[in-house]
């Protein structure tokens, strides 16, 4: 019995190590890493201009496709292209005293071709304005990534309507 138990434990350990290695080398971890890097590039605890801000934004550039399209949902308009996205990120970094971005409940699906991937995630954004007031925004995002030359880059980001407006034009009419 002891011998059998030892063999079972050894097999379980081997399976765990193989699974861990597969996960480590697999696309899911790399895709999660992209999201973590994006969050890190945009988040800051104090307004950053100059070299520190530029370095953070340079890191963001590597995560975005040149033709990236970002639709963050109301009240923000769509952002098209990497340059526009970088400008928006720079505006956040310089214009807010503190901003913290986090992706939670992230689910990654990689297509069979290994080139396309979709991520369903919740974006949690904590903002502190100039008056020191804190606010929290959360929205569900659908992120599409492409594998370009062995690197995963974000092709599009679209906010999901968790609550559908009760009529398409009603709310904008009242604004």
């Amino acid at each position, binding site marked *: 019995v002891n011998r059998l138990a030892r063999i079972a434990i050894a097999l379980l350990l081997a399976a765990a190590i193989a699974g861990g290695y597969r996960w480590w080398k697999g696309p899911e971890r790399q895709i999660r890493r992209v999201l973590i890097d994006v969050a890190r590039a945009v988040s800051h605890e104090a307004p950053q201009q100059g070299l520190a801000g530029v370095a953070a934004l340079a890191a963001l550039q590597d995560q975005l496709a040149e033709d990236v399209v970002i639709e963050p949902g109301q009240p923000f308009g769509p952002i098209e292209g990497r340059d526009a996205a970088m400008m928006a990120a720079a505006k956040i970094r310089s214009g807010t005293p503190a901003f913290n971005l986090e992706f939670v409940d992230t689910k990654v699906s990689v297509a069979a071709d290994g080139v396309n991937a979709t991520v*369903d995630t919740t974006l949690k954004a904590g903002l502190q304005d100039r008056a020191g007031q804190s*606010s929290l925004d959360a929205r569900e995002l659908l992120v599409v990534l492409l594998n370009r030359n062995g690197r995963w880059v974000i092709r599009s980001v679209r906010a999901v309507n*968790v609550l559908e407006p*009760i009529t398409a034009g009603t*709310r904008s009419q009242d604004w």
Partner: protein
Amino acid sequence: VSDERRRLEIGHPSARLPAFLVTPTPPLARRLIFGTRPAWTAIRVATTVVAAYVVFGYLLIPVRGAGHSMTPTLADGELVFVNTLAYIRHPPVRGDIVALRLAGTRIVYVKRIVGMPGERVAIENGTLFINGGALDEPYVKYRGSWNVPEVTLGADRYLFIGDNRAMSIRQHDFGTARLERVVGRIVWLRE
């Protein structure tokens, strides 16, 4: 045994050092921490940890409110729980406060169900009308000038709104969703 050694024994009245310094781990302390049967204690601890994980991870999920859309029913920062088993036997009813999932359940929206599938709903100056009649909503303490023309809800869609109608309509997330979005009913609200 010499007199000197006897003085250092545990509990000896003439001992110069306190007993816990002479004996690093007294049996009583060991018994208090690990019990008389350490194996059973380990099983009890493991069972408690697993039970807490299942209960608070899946059945009664703790949620801390952020924002003012449910004021005054739910205060900013207030801790409530989501009962995920609430709608196993019956569907939600009007007036229930529920949690709505986003991509998962770590961050949820907390809203009140005010419209049921197939109903005609409208909002006039912050007052909700269901099938043409004003809905009695004692939980709404503050009303702003919200106006939404009448619309008929889909056969599988519920209408969710927060209790705070004083805030600007554009800052308030409300609308319809299917039952799949509902994680469960909010419980343990303060009265």
